[in-house]
């Protein structure tokens, strides 16, 4: 019987790991979902904004000595502005260029930002100084038998849920939210209706990047490791989560993130840890092939 209890606590602990990882992917996936939902562009550079968020918080705390929570808020704001600048510099001029052009610009931007960070902060793995965040984060919040969940995991999940709720309200209740949904249906008509299309798109980028920056800080905290190429792989997995949930829908991003996080952790735990990244890529390809509209998303017919 002892074997059974032991096995199930292993499973539950993996589940906890999976949910936390899922929360992180969900936060990043929101950025992809909102941007793709509005202007149908895969914002490859979003992964890099997530990485910049982590590094900004690191620099603020170590170099400028700002306390953690202030640095946390400041990083979110700076990342939001960064998202707007990125849209203004890279994507606005290509608003009605062919999709191939915008996609290639996104890839170029991602490579550019990645190497810029590598030049500024060097390519070694850096970690947040131990005294930076309140010590309570590391103490296990609730532990049943072998299974333990630290406060920082609780902090990440709670922030993810709170952000999702706020975002959902913004999109469905506020004026700018309706404008966003209008633009995702048809850009030109919404412009005719007096919606400042570029302004709303910048707002979308701002929110998406703010979420991405927040995710960067949380990951830096949780794994205590940041390095310039962390955005590239996490970005692609987050996009897979966004597609899995149903591109364009915020709850979809959350669901997709959770499912992908758990699938990856279970895969690494039970199937084979070498193919850990492979599992999320396989899930992404399977979803795109068999159900492009994702779990929640609606099928957007192609207008001839």
């Amino acid at each position, binding site marked *: 019987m002892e074997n059974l209890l032991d096995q199930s606590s292993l499973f539950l602990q993996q589940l906890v790991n999976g949910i936390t990882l899922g929360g992180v992917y969900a936060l990043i996936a929101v950025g992809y979902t909102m941007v793709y939902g509005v202007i149908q562009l895969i914002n490859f550079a979003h992964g890099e904004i997530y990485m910049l968020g982590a590094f900004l918080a690191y620099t603020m705390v170590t170099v400028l000595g700002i306390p953690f929570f202030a640095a946390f808020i400041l990083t979110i704001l700076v990342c939001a502005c960064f998202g707007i600048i990125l849209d203004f510099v890279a994507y606005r001029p*290509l608003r009605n260029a062919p999709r191939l052009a915008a996609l290639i610009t996104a890839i170029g931007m991602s*490579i550019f930002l990645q190497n810029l960070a590598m030049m500024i902060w060097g390519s070694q793995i850096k970690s947040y100084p131990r005294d930076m965040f309140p010590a309570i984060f590391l103490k296990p919040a609730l532990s049943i038998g072998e299974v333990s969940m630290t406060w920082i995991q609780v902090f990440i999940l709670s922030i993810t849920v709170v952000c999702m709720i706020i975002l959902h309200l913004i999109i469905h209740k506020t004026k700018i939210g309706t404008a966003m949904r209008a633009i995702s249906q048809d850009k030109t008509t919404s412009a005719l209706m007096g919606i400042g299309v570029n302004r709303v798109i910048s707002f979308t980028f701002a929110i998406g990047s703010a979420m991405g920056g927040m995710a960067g800080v949380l990951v830096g905290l949780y794994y205590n490791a940041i390095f310039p190429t962390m955005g*590239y792989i996490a970005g692609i997995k987050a996009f897979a989560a966004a597609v899995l949930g149903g591109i364009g829908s915020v709850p979809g991003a959350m669901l997709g993130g959770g499912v992908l996080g758990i699938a990856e952790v279970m895969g690494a735990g039970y199937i084979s840890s070498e193919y850990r990244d492979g599992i999320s890529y396989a899930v*992404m390809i399977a979803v795109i*092939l068999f159900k492009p509209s994702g779990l929640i998303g609606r099928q957007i017919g192609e207008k001839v």
Partner: protein
Amino acid sequence: MRWQLYKKDPRFVFLSLIFLAVLLPWLPLGASTNYVLRIMTTAVLYMILALGLNIVPGFTGLLDLGYVGFYGIGAYTSGLLSIHYDLSLWVILPLAALNGALWGTILGAPTLRLTGDYFAIVTFGFSELVVLVLRNELWLTRGPMGLPGISPPSIFGHPLASDWEFFYLILLLLMIVLLVVTRLQNSRLGRAWFAIREDEIAAQCCGVNLIRYKVTAFAISASIGAMGGAFYAKWFKFIHPDMFKFWESILILCLIVFGGMGSIAGTMLGALILIPLSEVLRAVLPQGLFNARYLIYGLVLVLMMRWRPEGLVPFKRAQAKKAKLAQERLEI
């Protein structure tokens, strides 16, 4: 009269360019001839890869981010065949091309129904999976230990050793690929691809079976990539999974974007300029800023798309020139 016409004919331009390249090893460069020859061989190799990739985004307008997967498959096919069965390069090249085409079809057939963005992401997923398999399947590829000791190619029994021999071999391959690509471009298949690139719906209504022609384009592009990989393995004599990372796809994409998507001359020019650029940057950049050259490639992608999306040698102008040429030939 015939001479002026002949001078403008693209075929003549390519032949004279290759004739100039043949002279390269004998140029008096003193000690660094081998080093320059090696850079030129790499540049010509990337020209072949760029011509291969050019078929998918250039002719048919589909962004393929997974091109390095086929490059890796070709390299490992060649490496494994030459280690286990010690086949010569002339047997390996067609086999690698076939293997690349096979995997191109396996990936292409189900995914080519997708819209552009999703297709790009699926090809990216494919190339990452290929790297994972190469790295983790020890029984097949010795995984991270790589494949050392690949025998160099040999012509009539004489194994190639010095750099100029490899340079002539890669030039020969370039001419073959150039022949294939130009013939495809000016044929029914090429026109169907351009139709798909210009307007899919109109192409469909003209009787072009979208899926079949996209998969054909993908298979041919994959086989050229695999052939490039086969040469690379034989030339390098050692291959390792880290050589086929996502960055290579971006680099080759950068070449065709910079040169001009869809135009053969542009793609070749792009490779000729950008590949030696990284060697020049190695000499110019200070020690610490070594990865600045990736930064510059990323910047090239962004700036080109912003100010000159059609690249150095625009596809549209190439078509107009070709049409003018056909008109003059008709009048004679």
